[in-house]
């Protein structure tokens, strides 16, 4: 094995290179802080049922009076129904994160599939797939997602599909470019010469090499998906019974909290959305810088 023909990595090599990447990531202070914030948010979302009960979230039998400023009993005030803003915001993390992550899985899944197929099969397949990708890249994404969410039956699954189906184009472009560079390497030719079929080449050689890039792209996509979820919920297109950060803001607007100047109903969900999106973006950029050192210091 010469340096020009890198052998497929053994398990030990993989572990060592993971440790090296982990160390490089740990040197990025913003990236570490963002990762900690995300872990804390996910922890709060998972543990939410321990502190927040059904009684706290009931719109009909709300525990307090509606739209009260922060007090000792409700540290973040109450929302339009009289529920504690603290409980609503913590509970909202569950839907917002779940929808954001699921939509990302759909989006990155479609993007990776289209990108690898286009980069592997070339020719007509590539032309057609890339045309479709470019088409999705220019369409106004939110308008398309909102239109989809309004014509399909209302619900959380619809929101996941609407976001996932409209946001995969960037991933597809990136994955295709990476697939092309991987496929040009000699060991792919060797795998083909040894009788490897399309399935073998794409899953055993292309996919592992594309995976790091897909991971970085995933963290960036999550941020967009969470923003999209809150936006669709604000436009009234989510599941109307679910408590998410977007529906909380929509409710605040509906009950007139904005024109009354009730800032405490607006700040917690909005800050939560912005904080989580920012953290995912910072994580994605840090991962990108670690995996692709050429980009380091650019952003």
């Amino acid at each position, binding site marked *: 094995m010469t340096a020009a023909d890198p052998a497929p990595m053994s398990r030990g090599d993989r572990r060592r290179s993971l440790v090296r990447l982990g160390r490089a990531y740990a040197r990025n202070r913003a990236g570490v802080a963002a990762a900690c914030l995300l872990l804390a948010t996910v922890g709060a979302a998972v543990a939410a049922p321990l502190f927040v009960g059904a009684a706290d979230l009931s719109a009909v039998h709300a525990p307090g009076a509606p739209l009260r400023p922060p007090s000792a009993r409700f540290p973040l005030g109450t929302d339009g129904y009289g529920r504690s803003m603290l409980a609503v915001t913590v509970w909202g993390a569950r839907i917002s994160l779940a929808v954001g992550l699921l939509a990302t899985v759909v989006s990155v899944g479609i993007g990776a599939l289209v990108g690898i197929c286009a980069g592997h099969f070339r020719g007509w397949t590539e032309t057609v797939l890339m045309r479709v990708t470019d088409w999705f890249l220019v369409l106004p*994404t939110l*308008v*398309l997602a909102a*239109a989809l969410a*309004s014509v399909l039956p209302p619900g959380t699954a619809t929101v996941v599909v609407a976001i996932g189906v409209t946001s995969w184009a960037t991933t597809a472009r990136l994955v295709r470019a990476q697939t092309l560079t991987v496929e040009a390497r000699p060991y792919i030719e060797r795998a083909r010469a040894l009788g490897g079929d399309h399935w073998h080449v794409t899953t055993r050689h292309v996919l592992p090499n594309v995976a790091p890039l897909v991971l970085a792209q995933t963290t960036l996509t999550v941020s967009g998906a969470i923003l999209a979820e*809150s936006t669709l919920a604000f436009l009234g297109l989510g599941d109307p019974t679910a408590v998410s950060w977007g529906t909380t803001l929509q409710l605040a607007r509906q009950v007139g909290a904005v024109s009354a100047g009730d800032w405490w109903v*607006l700040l917690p969900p909005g800050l939560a*959305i912005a904080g989580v999106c920012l953290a995912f*973006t*910072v994580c994605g950029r840090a991962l990108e810088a670690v995996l692709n050192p050429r980009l380091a210091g650019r952003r």
Partner: protein
Amino acid sequence: MARYLAAKLAGASVSLVAVALTAFFLFRVLPGDPVRALTRGRPTSAAQLAQLRHQLGVDRPLAAQFADYLLRLTHGDLGTSYQYKTSVTGLIGEHLWATVYLVGTATLLSAVLGLRSGIRSAWRHGSVGDRVRTGVAVVLWSVPSFWLGLLLIVVLAVGVGPVPGLFPTGGASTPGTHGAVAVLTDRLTHLALPCLTLVAVIYAQYALTMRASLLDEMGSDYLTTARAKGLRDDQVRRRHAVPNALLPTVTLIFVNVGFVVSGSVLVETVFSWPGLGSLFYEALSVPDLPLLEGLFVVFSAAVILMNLLADLLYPVLDPRVRTA
């Protein structure tokens, strides 16, 4: 050159046809039964449903509907709104200028702001100013535009504590204002907050792209040559570095129309701005399928036309494209 133009024009035409097909699929095929969606939550008899279906023309086979749809589209007829019972084309015409006015002003301001901020950041990269500017841009990029709008209304239009409200909470003008100066101030105060919200959300991307592409040029030999000739730092930046780094950002500004349109849907909704965005929001809740379809076609066509414009501008901006 002629070949380049022909290719771009052909590409744009194909895209426009694809928009028409997507709109038909999205709003006629996907919803299944639009009548069921329209009457959701209201008790309706089977006879009423059938009559409504006939009235809306959705009881005919899809192929016939599609032929009819294409024929009407070539005449610029986008159908009749379920909600307003008037022509969709007319409705869009009425609301178009408010959106162009808002989006145009915001795009212009954010382009100027984004380019300036990006150039300064890159030229003094690593400085405190660069870190602050980049940080602010990344934060604003993560903020939902509608939430920023709501906050601005609370702080600057309603007022918090001792701060009085300075701007109107919504709309594009106060009816019954007379006198040129009064009308102008009225228009500008109404424009201020929606425009500020849009600018805050869209300028960040321009600033970050401009910074990245200027940083790429920073180490180039031709800049050293320009400095060796004795040019001042300012001239090196303005005459040599910036023109070479401008293309990606200018492209982005044109390509970004889709993003700005999405932003304007939210901002117009929050500020009750009487444009296409508010119209889209109202159509969503019904759902008013012909109106949604018409707006989708208009929004997508705007993106395609702006992309075409960007393609046509390349050779003017960059001589390298002309020879290629």
